[in-house]
């Protein structure tokens, strides 16, 4: 701080770093939002997909502090990479800087457990300000906090806050500022001492082995990191920033302790809880008889859970809630999606009108505008899904979802919380993949991402509609059940079963690992803080647009280029001559225009055939021929990689029915039905249609999905795996359907 006394050095002084930590469900994030301005940023921690929320706090002294919201945790002990972040950020292990201050947010109604983590932070020797949140809920139970006693015993500033109502924020800000100026007032050091002399000896042994970059010349810090290591390290943990020397000494200390029949974990944890329990009566005092109605209020969550966790009623309500979420993603988002599509369609035609004919015009319309449009079109569903998830998490209902679904999902090897993302997959895989963030472990997230794209997303519907409507009769089975509707339902059932089986297989092979015991907190139901929910929704969406959006845009442009180049088909002269002939003919203007349009469509179709994409379609024909597909379907499959529904408009171009074709276009349907092979047999039969639908159900023809998986797993490995396994699965299944059908005598 004294460095800033020289005026010229002001700019070189780094911003103070304030870290906000605490248990889950303490209102920590709401407090963080209240404390800081609107300049919040969401990024990921290096190497892992844990959201890193930072924002600026303006100080009364004129400076600015950087505030970092670390993910909620019950303790600093770690086993996984994700959990390791807490100790790294709070202790300031490389590459993180040592925080100037840690604000621990505690839930007043669960004080002893929250103080446990507070003691861990205090041990590290960083200045701590304790914000006891939700003291009003404690008071409603007729109990009051003795802040004076807490300040005295803990030796740090303690403030009572209500993040939801915005109370106590000024006090908290004042304590933060005062502590940044004189950190000594909030750095009392250890509060408990090991009762067991053996434990004391163990800690000294480990502390002596602490490397200099961990110890930083501070014996108290070395000792704190020694406790942390003793509690966290073990064989098979996933921590990756631990010096070997520390690992070795901890292993030998633990082994010695085990031989002596000691339980070191219990000794440490009981040491901290013992200190807390001895003071709880001084911290929380019974004020008087419980206030009127407070008993009922305390049990409100209990009574609501009696219904919401009920094996029958709870499930029914859960399905109802999921129905609303599903319905909203599926149909409420539809008007917004349509207007976005309409807007980009309009932009496309406007660009065609404004830019002179030629390559620039086609690039702007078919590459750039279509590309940006294919990113923006996800916004309605992503925003809605994040809104629902935000409310479910903030209200406490998400924990109940995990509770209700645990058994079913566990049988499939999935996390209880995987249900919401999987259901969202029926609407669109991209927001569903982003929704996997509600699970803590990378393994659970990645496994869920690997099966979500198998769900029947809404982009498959136009393809199914085209195929079913074109190739299957509108007749009824047993005179009542329509064949077409039945097929559509069958496709949904098929995709759901495939996804569940895939999860079962993957969880027992690639994602094999010891089953993880469930320890699930069911927090009291609370009113969500709407601005926080909205803010989170927007921040998550923005980070999607920034990272996955660029990949989607780039892929759309590449695909456009594939289907548009080379420019010269060598046939232009022929089409021009045809056009000139029509222009010169004596036919009425309307008839001439129609003929010209027909020639244009034929030219488009010819150009597509000659394009790199068209050649690619020819090149893959031998591979897809056993599935019953010809090269034209091949071109459609390549086009469908941008997004599945593009299959329909690509087929429109291939068959010269116009690129504006949709799944209900009768011209396209007629052309498809009339298409014949060299030997005169029709290309499209119901069997080919079935094979094609199975292919669409299973193949990963969606680069947006791959871009989202790449973003969420931070590697190309998982999107590559996803693409390969789904494509192989699709090929095998279509092959089985087509060849099996032919063997059974179908055409």
């Amino acid at each position, binding site marked *: 701080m004294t460095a800033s006394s020289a005026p010229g050095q002001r700019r070189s002084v780094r911003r103070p770093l304030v870290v906000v930590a605490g248990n889950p469900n303490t209102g920590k994030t709401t407090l963080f939002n209240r404390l800081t301005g609107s300049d919040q940023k969401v990024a990921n921690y290096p190497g892992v997909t844990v959201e890193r929320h930072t924002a600026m706090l303006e100080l009364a002294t004129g400076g600015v502090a950087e505030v970092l919201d670390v993910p909620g945790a019950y303790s600093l002990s770690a086993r996984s990479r994700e959990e390791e972040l807490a100790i790294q950020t709070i202790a300031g292990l490389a590459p993180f800087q040592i925080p100037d201050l840690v604000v621990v947010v505690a839930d007043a109604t669960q004080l002893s457990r929250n103080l446990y983590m507070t003691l861990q932070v205090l041990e590290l020797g960083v200045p701590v300000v304790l914000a006891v949140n939700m003291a009003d809920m404690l008071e409603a139970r007729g109990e009051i906090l003795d802040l004076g006693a807490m300040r005295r015993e803990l030796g740090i500033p303690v403030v009572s806050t209500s993040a939801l109502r915005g109370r106590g924020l000024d006090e908290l800000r004042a304590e933060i500022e005062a502590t940044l100026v004189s950190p000594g007032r909030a750095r009392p050091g250890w509060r408990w001492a090991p009762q067991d002399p053996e434990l004391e000896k163990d800690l000294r042994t480990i502390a002596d082995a602490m490397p200099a970059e961990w110890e930083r010349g501070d014996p108290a810090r070395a000792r704190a990191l020694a406790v942390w290591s003793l509690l966290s390290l073990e064989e098979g943990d996933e921590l990756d920033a631990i010096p070997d020397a520390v690992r070795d000494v901890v292993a030998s200390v633990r082994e010695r302790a085990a031989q002596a029949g000691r339980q070191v974990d219990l000794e440490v944890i*009981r040491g901290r809880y013992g200190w807390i329990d001895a003071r709880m009566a001084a911290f929380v005092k019974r004020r008087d008889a419980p206030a009127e109605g407070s008993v009922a209020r305390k049990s409100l969550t209990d009574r609501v859970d009696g219904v919401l966790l009920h*094996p029958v009623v709870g499930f029914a309500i859960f399905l109802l809630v999921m129905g609303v979420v599903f319905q909203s993603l599926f149909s409420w988002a539809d008007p917004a999606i349509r207007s976005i599509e309409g807007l980009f369609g309009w932009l496309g035609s406007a660009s065609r009108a404004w830019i002179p004919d030629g390559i620039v015009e086609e690039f702007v319309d078919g590459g750039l505008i279509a590309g940006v449009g294919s990113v923006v079109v996800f916004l309605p569903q992503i925003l809605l899904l994040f809104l629902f998830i935000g409310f479910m998490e903030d209200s406490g209902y998400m924990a109940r979802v995990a509770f209700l679904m645990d058994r079913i999902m566990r049988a499939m090897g999935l996390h209880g919380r995987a249900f919401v993302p999987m259901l969202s997959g029926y609407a669109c895989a991209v927001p569903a993949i982003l929704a996997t963030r509600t699970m803590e472990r990378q393994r659970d997230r990645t496994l869920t991402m690997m099966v979500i794209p198998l769900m029947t997303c809404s982009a498959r519907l136009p393809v199914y509609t085209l195929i079913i409507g074109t190739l299957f009769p509108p007749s009824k089975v047993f005179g009542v059940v329509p064949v077409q509707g039945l097929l559509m339902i069958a496709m949904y059932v098929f995709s759901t079963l495939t996804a569940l089986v895939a999860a079962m297989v993957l969880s027992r092979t690639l994602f094999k690992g010891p089953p993880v015991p469930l320890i699930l907190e069911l927090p009291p139901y609370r009113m969500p803080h709407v601005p926080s929910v909205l803010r989170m929704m927007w921040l998550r969406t923005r980070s999607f647009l920034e990272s996955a959006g660029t990949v989607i845009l780039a892929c759309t442009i590449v695909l456009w280029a594939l289907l548009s180049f080379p420019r010269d088909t060598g046939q232009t002269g022929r089409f021009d001559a045809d056009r000139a002939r029509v222009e010169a003919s004596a036919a009425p203007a309307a008839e001439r225009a129609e003929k010209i349009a027909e020639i244009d469509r034929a030219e488009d179709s010819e150009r597509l055939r000659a394009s790199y994409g068209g050649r690619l379609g020819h090149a893959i024909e031998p591979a897809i021929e056993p599935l019953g597909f010809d090269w034209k379907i091949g071109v459609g499959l390549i086009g469908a990689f941008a997004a599945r529904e593009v299959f329909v408009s690509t087929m429109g171009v291939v068959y010269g029915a116009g690129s504006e074709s949709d799944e209900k276009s009768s011209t396209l349907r007629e052309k498809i039905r009339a298409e014949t092979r060299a030997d005169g047999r029709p290309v499209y039969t119901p069997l080919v249609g079935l094979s094609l639908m199975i292919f669409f159900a299973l193949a990963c023809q969606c680069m947006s999905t791959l871009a989202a998986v790449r973003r969420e797993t931070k590697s190309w490995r998982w999107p590559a795996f996803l693409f390969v396994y789904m494509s192989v699965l699709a090929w095998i299944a279509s092959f089985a359907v087509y060849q099996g059908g032919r063997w059974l005598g179908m055409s």
Partner: protein
Amino acid sequence: MRPLRDLSPGQCARLAQIGGDRPFRRRLMEMGFLPGTVVRLVRRVDVADLLELEVRGSHISLRRSEAGALFLEPEG
């Protein structure tokens, strides 16, 4: 010692022993499940194979099978 699983809904008892794998045991102890801590069984949902416990003012849910590693002090 009697197993925690035998508690009936609404009943309280003191924990005597916390077993299971080390990560499971450590996590429970850090959440305040220690020998001598009072637990209350809030509810049992058998079809879901889950128990809901109240410990130190928090409601924690465990699978019935995994809660088999937790034991209580004898009554009285």
